[in-house]
């Protein structure tokens, strides 16, 4: 199968799962913004995406995307380290055009995983998971009271800082990932390379800012 036994095929799997995750992030971010306008509307969304069959199917599909992306990430990194060999240059200098993020995608991805685990503990476990097992008192609030969980979590400055660092890592991952995925699909040339990079930077910045603004607004709300 070319998606596993050729280098370009493996990269295509990375890109397809990566782009699908970017679309998921966009959707998740838009949902979060609802909380800024109306907490009732946000809780309605939470209810809608609780333990219903369609939300569960989507969750499983999403989890599969993550798992594939992560397995391939470690696999590619392993293959690449082997191809690079064990000898290291005594002196080596990074050319200016090489982005830092492009050489640290795995590290950034691992930070994303760590943030994700915390995020599961803060929200998912107490919300969707609580509904799945039918224990509605797993968390501090009801499983569909998302707005209360947001206010609760981001009232704590430590969580605010951790979530912002998490988002920053995601931003770096996406600024490289976006154009890299287009390049991997072959949808690039000298002109489109520059365009994808700008589109990718603007898009990642908007998505990450969308997430960050909810965190920051709720933090300031908790102060007054």
């Amino acid at each position, binding site marked *: 199968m070319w998606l596993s036994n050729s280098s370009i095929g493996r990269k295509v799997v990375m890109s397809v799962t990566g782009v699908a995750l970017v679309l998921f992030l966009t959707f998740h971010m838009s949902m979060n913004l609802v909380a800024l306008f109306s907490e009732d509307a946000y809780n309605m969304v939470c209810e809608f995406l609780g333990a219903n069959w369609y939300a569960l199917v989507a969750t499983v599909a999403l989890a599969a995307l993550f798992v594939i992306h992560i397995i391939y990430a470690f696999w590619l990194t392993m293959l690449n380290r082997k191809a690079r060999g064990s000898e*290291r240059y005594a002196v*080596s200098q990074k*050319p200016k055009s090489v982005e830092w993020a492009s050489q640290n995608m795995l590290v950034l991805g691992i930070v994303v995983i760590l943030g994700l685990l915390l995020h599961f503990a803060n929200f998912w476990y107490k919300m969707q998971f609580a509904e799945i097992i039918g224990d509605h008192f797993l968390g501090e609030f009801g499983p569909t009271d998302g707005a209360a969980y947001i206010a609760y979590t981001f009232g704590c400055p430590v969580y605010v800082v951790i979530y912002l660092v998490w988002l920053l890592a995601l931003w770096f991952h996406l600024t490289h990932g976006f154009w890299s995925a287009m390049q991997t699909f072959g949808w690039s040339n000298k002109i489109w390379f520059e365009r994808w990079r700008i589109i990718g930077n603007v898009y990642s910045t908007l998505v990450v800012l969308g997430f960050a603004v909810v965190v920051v607004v709720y933090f300031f709300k908790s102060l007054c």
Partner: protein
Amino acid sequence: MEKIISFTLKIWRQNGPKDKGHFDTFQMKDIPGDTSFLEMLDILNEQLVSEGKEPVVFDHDCREGICGMCSLYINGHPHGPATGATTCQIYMRRFNDGDTITVEPWRSAGFPVIKDLMVDRSAYDKIMQAGGYVSVNTGAAQDANAILIPKTAADEAMDAASCIGCGACVAACKNGSAMLFVSAKVSQLALLPQGKSEAARRAKAMLAKMDELGFGNCTNTRACEAECPKNVSISNIARLNREFIKAKLKD
């Protein structure tokens, strides 16, 4: 006024692929600025020979930037600090009095060291043999003139064809990937009518060979194009990806 410099050379010595290897240090005195980097190594080797010591082994041939043999990793850059130039095209005036200049071989699993600074780049020949050619006779110059080729396509093909197969792209790549080389060799033919008909087969065969020989998976870091002495662009890699994915989807 002519620049004359004295400096310290740190050169990698390794007796064979299995040897551990180490750095040797040499003091170079009063080297004129218009000595080329390879001539400077010649001067060093003459000194070593006259002292009865073993000269440093390094690859070279044309000494004018067209054969791609002079594979040296100088002060952290393949082909040294210059951009768009091979090792044989850089001159000592680029360095300063009192500098320490570190010279290493390409370090990548695909290019094992033969001795000192010389590496085995025959993997590139194997990739070329896998499909880097046109298998029909395309005629003589007048036949080429009978086929109209858009200027933009001709220019891009020529830019890709400027690749000299030096291996700096692999040497620069943290993933040990040969994608810039393979993509240049696929593009130089895929862009022209004579090469187009075999483009899919060529892309598949050359990429399969590259993977088989153990080169890495390209993660688009762009170190290759920054260090390539011929400024080959990663837009060629996008073209290779496109050709390859199209071919696989059709199968």
